[in-house]
């Protein structure tokens, strides 16, 4: 019997559950230097906003045990430039494209959602709520479930029907309530999760290793943290479609997330370490399924015992 790796999100079938994680494969098709992008279940772009952002000063990254902290600062050329120059590069017929976006106020979020919502080539949007709300004195949208629900509702209205996945921050202990609010607001599903606030210090210079003083931790180190939270969301909201993000580096990791309740799995830091990682993992996922006697990968969804 043929091995089925396909999954579905927002009613669309994806060839397989693997996608890029926002910010680790750029805004364009650079990654196609390393493998045909159509091999992916979907492609998620680096975050875009209405206005271009130049990003933070260097140093923007530092390495930690089994992890990576970044404070890139959401550098992007702005939505118009993205749509005009990068979007047309993508083989949107054969590769579902998910565009990650953000704002710094409710209005700029809505504006971004509206611009992207019109574009037919885009399969879905991923709304990053880990950003500070300048109008509310820099309080993070993700920290306030009601504000997050309200924001998501307005953005969905602006997109005129395009599926919107909300990317949650793991930094707030009320993430279950936020999940609940944004799903009630009409989100298509949730991306679990963004990076963890973290820092490192250079003892010689007695200063932080990142220009911003802190950044977001990604990589294998965070997998056990995000895996638990994703499973908690799945337990509370078993119907919700979940896209896992956090520390995936092997086929085993993919299966862990699916067992915990994920419909799809993003590769972030893993692509930075090895740009061919999506096809390497796809291959080893196939072999692992054969060895484990799995013929339909999605049958494993949420099937962890205990």
């Amino acid at each position: 019997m043929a091995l089925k790796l396909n999954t579905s999100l927002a009613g669309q079938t994806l060839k397989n559950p693997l996608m890029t994680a926002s910010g680790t494969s750029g805004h364009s098709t650079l990654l196609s230097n390393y493998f045909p992008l159509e091999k992916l279940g979907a492609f998620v772009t680096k975050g875009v906003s209405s206005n271009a952002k130049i990003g933070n000063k260097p140093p923007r990254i530092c390495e930690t045990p089994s992890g990576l902290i970044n404070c890139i600062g959401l550098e992007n050329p702005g939505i118009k430039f993205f749509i005009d120059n990068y979007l047309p590069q993508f083989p949107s017929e054969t590769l579902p494209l998910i565009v990650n976006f953000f704002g710094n106020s409710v209005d700029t979020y809505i504006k971004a959602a509206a611009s992207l919502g019109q574009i037919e080539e885009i399969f879905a949007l991923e709304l990053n709520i880990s950003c500070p709300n300048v109008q509310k004195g820099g309080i993070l949208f993700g920290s306030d479930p009601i504000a997050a629900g309200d924001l998501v509702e307005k953005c969905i209205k602006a997109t005129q029907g395009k599926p919107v996945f909300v990317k949650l921050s793991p930094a707030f202990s009320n993430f279950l309530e936020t999940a609940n609010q944004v799903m009630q607001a009409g989100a298509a599903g949730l991306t679990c999760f963004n990076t963890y606030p973290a820092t490192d210090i250079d003892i010689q210079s007695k200063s932080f290793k990142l220009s911003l003083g802190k950044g977001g931790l990604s990589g294998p180190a965070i997998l056990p943290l995000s895996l638990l939270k994703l499973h908690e969301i799945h337990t509370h909201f078993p119907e919700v479609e979940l896209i896992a993000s956090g520390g995936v580096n092997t086929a085993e990791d993919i299966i862990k997330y699916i067992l915990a309740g994920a419909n799809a799995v993003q590769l972030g830091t893993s692509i930075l370490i090895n740009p061919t990682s999506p096809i390497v993992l796809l291959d080893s996922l196939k072999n692992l399924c054969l060895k484990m006697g799995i013929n339909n990968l999605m049958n494993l969804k949420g099937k962890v015992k205990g």
Partner: protein
Amino acid sequence: MNKLKPNFFSAPILSNQKIGKNYFCLKVKTPQNIDQVEPGQFAMLRGKWNYDPLLPRPLSIARAEKFQLDFIYEVRGRGTHLLSLMQPPREIEILAPLGNSFPPPENSLPLLLAGGIGFPPLYFYQQKYGGKLLAGFQTNPELDLFSDKIIATDDGSLGFKGNVLQLLESCTEINNYSTIMACGPRIMLKQLKNRCSPLQCNLFLSLEEKMACGTGLCHGCAVKSRQNDYFKICTDGPIFKSSDVNLEE
């Protein structure tokens, strides 16, 4: 120029030997002919260990011939220390070639200025195209690659006592060169840029910054441009015309 596309491969180690005080030379076998690699290009290297250290390390290519790549590196921290322990028949994951390169000589040969472990790409350049190389170190590097006459050491333990810019002033006329190429610590590059700004010469700098991917994907390796936005050192560089970048940020 017929630029080679970057390729991710697992490379058998041919040798990995200590060649100086804290310097090693790593030679690996490549799956494809890499004669077209140009001086200034680099690679991302990662031993097949587990997730710590996590990121590959950028190293300049010190020589590229047929199916062999050479690197010269200094053991600085955890990554390069682990690298120095890797011996044949183990393999190393390599992504190469990456980045742009120093321009080949046009009318005259360039002056090549290296600070510390900045010398490998300039050494490659000199071997391939010629040019006058001067290299500065903190202390005697105990390398067998250079004549003492082109070496400066801060502590005077070998060659000229002083830094490479002082050596330059002492032994040659900077105005004789229409092209200068340099690789070394940021502070040296800034001084050199200031020194050259009143001159007519073309100054090319090889820049460094922490890198996660080396391929333009992460936007980690930023340097301010003249236009006040950011270049990515790994794909816009690592070689920049000095007037294009703002080293003061």
